[in-house]
């Protein structure tokens, strides 16, 4: 390899770095060399270690050494999950090529790119294009997109761990497979943070047998200081809910003593609340404190990001919107408010402070209710053991596949046989059958199974040249608007009457308000004036009190990994170790739970029965995370309802679940072993999933991605009203008339694969079967059950006769809404 060591390109780069007083990290040099030798691969490095410059400079060096190999136009495609990342990356790359003396142009293309720049790019692509998976698919939907990508030598997937595990990951897999058609020798590089299943992550990104594949990992490890902030007295924190506003006094000194602090909350609603709380507590922060989340206007977000970089802002309240991204140099402190819900996310957020390689990261954890104190103890343990969650790739997502097929049909068209082979090469569709492929083809050409062929369905047609194509302009347009795999609630733009865009808000939230009501957005108190087209018109409000909006998306479930540690820590909490200050602090509350009910030890399983004016409650605490509890609770409800026809309202959070019924629930020491038995487990699970609404909920996203539900676009005047329907309605229709519909089946499979994780459920029941089951009758809500009563997601399940239910509701004091 002495060739490469002596090469002009490497020398140029080394000199350039030396001028700046830097030396490359070993993993960077290694990446450059492997790239130059024709490898594809995956780079694993924490943020702040210069992973961008590993792959990027690899391409630059190779170009400097062999400029003749690179034709004019696009050379490197850089795909990252976040739009906001692209802007700063482009800046850094442009600066690098300028200083190195290369005449490359580096450009961004995504939804925010102005139309004149897009047209310019379509005439001549820049040398480096930074984009998103969705924009890639939009490019594929253009008529002559082959010429854009013919000369591409390398595609880099940045923050691959963020894409893996969701449907955007599948979009990315498909985009790569398409690029390989255009440029067969394409080198593919992934860049990822550490996750629990790196080997799998690599296999998903690089499934192609003709690639030379490598993996490069930094040995350096980020050191994190986790500091939990405890209130002065235990009564300050509520048992549940998500405010803990009294902790504000503890946060102010932390902001004061650091240069710049990022304050992470879990939802946009919480961010708005904390922004107000902090400002009220210390009005001097006005102008130095900002709020940043996904529903705030782009201009404001850009301003905030610039102001963090320049050190102008003292603190920013934010959501996952700032989880990723280029490093803000002045940030030396991170505060996490409430549960971070996962180990990887917590570490990622911590890493936003003290970004340079050998600095320590500092994160303060502010609990908002008492059980979160157990969580921080669990987090510390997990970080100590270096146990990080896996991101499990999705497979056989037919919704994404039919979308992609139509995308290509809108673009240059596809040959059925070749395309099928191409799809089969990807990880996501390596197990697709011929029948399933034919169904998808039928779905986009004939409209699925119909009683008689429908002459007017012309979505995709077989053209004379043997390619499948979309000919209708209107269908093309509808499809382009629908490309992507992020399904959001219907969002409305919020604007001042006098003009001026503030941000976005979900329709369901605004529909509950009346003109004259006040709400908070982007840290401002606004008065609703009226709704017009798809826009909410507001004026500044003088109201002292205003509701802060809730956004439906944004409630993350606790990962299974963290819940495992949580279970261990809870049982430790009765006798906390000397150094576990959180658990020691919590001891009085734990003792209260022990006194009124029970604290489940590691080998115990607790069930609480409570009767209130609401009805009969059963609480169980598997500590398996919300997603598993959704399946678990439906299963138990199903088994109980086999003993007696009942209607249940089911609530779950990350710790456990509640079954509530208006009639007594037949559960006792005598039958509990039977109810929790691992016998017949999977059969009963299937039956309970069929009886519950879980699949219908999953179908929401599927219907949108597959183009069955037309989403109205925010800000547009026309909302395709005549094509409006709901995924719930279509789900019902397909259940009635087309049970073998692949998309319908996918909804059930997703419940299975994503939530249930058969192995884990089996393990949980195995564990429970060996545990001592403890049933407690409590007189009122206990510290463990209270959070479920007030703050949880709900579903229902019933096997009662509908008419009987209505008659009973009629007899009760019912309310009509």
């Amino acid at each position, binding site marked *: 390899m002495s060739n490469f060591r002596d090469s002009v390109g490497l020398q140029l780069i080394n000199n350039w770095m030396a001028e700046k007083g830097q030396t490359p990290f070993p993993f960077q040099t290694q990446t450059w060399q492997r790239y130059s030798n024709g490898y594809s691969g995956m780079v694993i490095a924490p943020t702040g270690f210069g992973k961008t410059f590993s792959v990027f400079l690899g391409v630059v060096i190779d170009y400097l050494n062999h400029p003749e190999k690179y034709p004019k136009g696009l050379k490197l495609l850089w795909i990252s999950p976040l739009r906001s990342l692209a802007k700063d990356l482009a800046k850094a790359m442009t600066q690098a090529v300028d200083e190195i003396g290369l005449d490359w142009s580096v450009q961004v293309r995504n939804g925010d790119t102005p139309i004149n720049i897009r047209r310019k790019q379509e005439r001549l692509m820049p040398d480096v294009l930074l984009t998103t998976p969705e924009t890639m698919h939009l490019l594929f939907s253009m008529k002559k997109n082959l010429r854009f990508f013919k000369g591409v030598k390398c595609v880099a997937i940045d923050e691959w761990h963020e894409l893996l595990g969701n449907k955007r990951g599948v979009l990315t897999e498909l985009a790569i497979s398409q690029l390989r058609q255009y440029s067969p020798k394409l080198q593919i590089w992934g860049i990822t943070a550490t996750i629990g299943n790196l080997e799998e992550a690599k296999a998903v990104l690089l499934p192609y047998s003709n690639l030379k594949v490598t993996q490069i990992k930094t040995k350096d490890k980020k050191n994190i200081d986790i500091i939990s902030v405890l209130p002065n007295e235990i009564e300050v924190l509520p048992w549940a809910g998500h405010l803990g506003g009294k902790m504000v006094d503890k946060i102010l000194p932390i902001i004061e003593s650091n240069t710049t602090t990022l304050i992470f909350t879990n939802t946009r609603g919480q961010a708005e609340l904390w922004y107000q709380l902090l400002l009220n507590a210390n009005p001097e922060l006005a102008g130095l404190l900002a709020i940043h989340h996904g529903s705030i206007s782009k201009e404001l977000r850009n301003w905030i990001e610039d102001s963090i970089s320049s050190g102008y802002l003292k603190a920013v309240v934010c959501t996952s919107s700032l989880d990723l991204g280029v490093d803000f140099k002045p940030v030396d402190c991170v505060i996490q408010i409430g549960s971070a819900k996962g180990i990887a996310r917590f570490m990622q957020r911590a890493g936003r402070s003290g970004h340079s390689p050998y600095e320590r990261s500092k994160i303060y954890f502010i609990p908002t209710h008492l059980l979160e104190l157990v969580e921080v103890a669990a987090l510390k343990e997990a970080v100590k053991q270096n146990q990080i969650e896996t991101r499990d790739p999705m497979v056989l997502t037919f919704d994404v596949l039919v979308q992609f097929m139509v995308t290509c049909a809108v673009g240059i068209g596809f040959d059925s046989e070749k395309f099928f082979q191409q799809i089969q090469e990807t990880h996501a569709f390596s197990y697709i059958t011929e029948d399933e492929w034919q169904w998808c083809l039928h779905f986009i050409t004939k409209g699925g199974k*119909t009683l008689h062929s429908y002459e*007017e369905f012309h979505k995709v047609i077989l053209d004379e040249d043997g390619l499948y194509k979309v000919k209708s302009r209107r269908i093309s347009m509808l499809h382009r608007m629908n490309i992507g795999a992020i399904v959001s609630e219907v969002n409305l733009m919020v604007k001042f009457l006098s003009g001026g865009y503030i941000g976005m808000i979900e329709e369901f939230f605004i*529909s509950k308000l009346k003109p004259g009501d006040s709400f908070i957005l982007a840290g401002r108190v606004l008065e609703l004036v009226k709704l017009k087209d798809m826009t909410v018109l507001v004026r500044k409000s003088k109201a002292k009190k205003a509701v802060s909006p809730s956004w439906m998306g944004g409630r993350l479930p606790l990962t299974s990994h963290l819940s495992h540690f949580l279970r261990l820590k809870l049982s430790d909490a009765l006798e906390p170790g000397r150094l576990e200050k959180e658990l020691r602090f919590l001891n009085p509350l734990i003792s209260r739970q022990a006194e009124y009910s029970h604290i489940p030890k590691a080998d115990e399983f607790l069930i609480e029965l409570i009767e209130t004016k609401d009805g009969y409650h059963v609480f169980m605490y598997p500590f398996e995370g919300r997603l598993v509890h959704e399946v678990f609770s439906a299963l138990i409800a199903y088994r109980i309802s086999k003993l007696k026809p009942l*209607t249940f*309202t089911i609530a779950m959070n990350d710790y456990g679940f509640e079954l509530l019924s*208006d*009639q007594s629930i037949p559960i006792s020491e005598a039958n509990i072993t039977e109810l929790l038995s691992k016998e017949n487990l999977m059969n009963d699970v299937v039956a309970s999933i069929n009886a519950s609404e879980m699949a219908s909920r999953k179908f929401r996203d599927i219907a949108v991605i597959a183009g069955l539900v037309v989403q109205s676009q925010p800000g547009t005047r026309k909302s395709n009203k005549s094509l409006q329907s709901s995924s719930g309605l279509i789900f019902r*229709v397909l259940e009635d008339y087309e049970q073998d519909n692949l998309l319908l089946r996918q909804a059930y499979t997703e419940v299975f694969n994503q939530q249930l994780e058969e192995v884990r459920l089996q393990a949980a029941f195995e564990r429970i079967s060996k545990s001592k089951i403890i049933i407690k009758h409590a007189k009122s809500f206990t510290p463990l059950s209270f959070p479920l009563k007030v703050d949880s997601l709900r579903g229902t399940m019933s096997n009662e006769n*509908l008419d009987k239910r209505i008659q009973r509701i009629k007899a009760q004091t019912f*309310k009509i809404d």
Partner: protein
Amino acid sequence: MNIAEEFIKIRNEELVLTNQRAIYWKRENALILSDLHIGKTGHFKKHGIPMPDAILQKDLERLEALTLHFKAKYLFVVGDLFHAEANEDMTTFKNWLLKFEFLKIILIKGNHDRLSKTMMVDFNIQVEIELEIDPFLLVHEHLEIHKENFTISGHTHPGVLLKGKGRQRLKLPCYQVASNQIILPAFSLFTGLNTRAQLKDTVTYAFTETSIFKF
């Protein structure tokens, strides 16, 4: 198909509310219904959104069963008989019409009804903006200007949300009967429910596959 019936008397007229989303008016020997949205599945398909044909088939089968059950001579459709443009579903509808030679259809034009006059002639459908048959005024949407009359209308696709003990929630389609109007549920099953538009002092008749419930 199970037809559950609820008899009500309004302004001395006997009306039969059914759980199959239509009212039978005895004196006129007429079925009154609203929001069939014929052509909706076809409209979706034309725009590349696949929908099962059975949706329209089932709606028409229900209408057929009701017509035969009451031996009705008239259909008063208070709007949105059709969803959008003329498409293949019109052929299905026309074939269905052939079975009912003596059935007279009067359509009160709804916001969705945009088909040409020639087509209406072809279907033998009489079209009106509103229709007064004492003591009722048939309109598509009840408006402020109608407040002197007793209207029978549709348009809103009314539904009701029942709340019971143990945080139970049930959403059902319904008729809304007030002192000066009746609002019909949407006839087509391929429609959503609107539970927000509650009127004051209304008796709600919600229904299931088998029964009708008065609230």
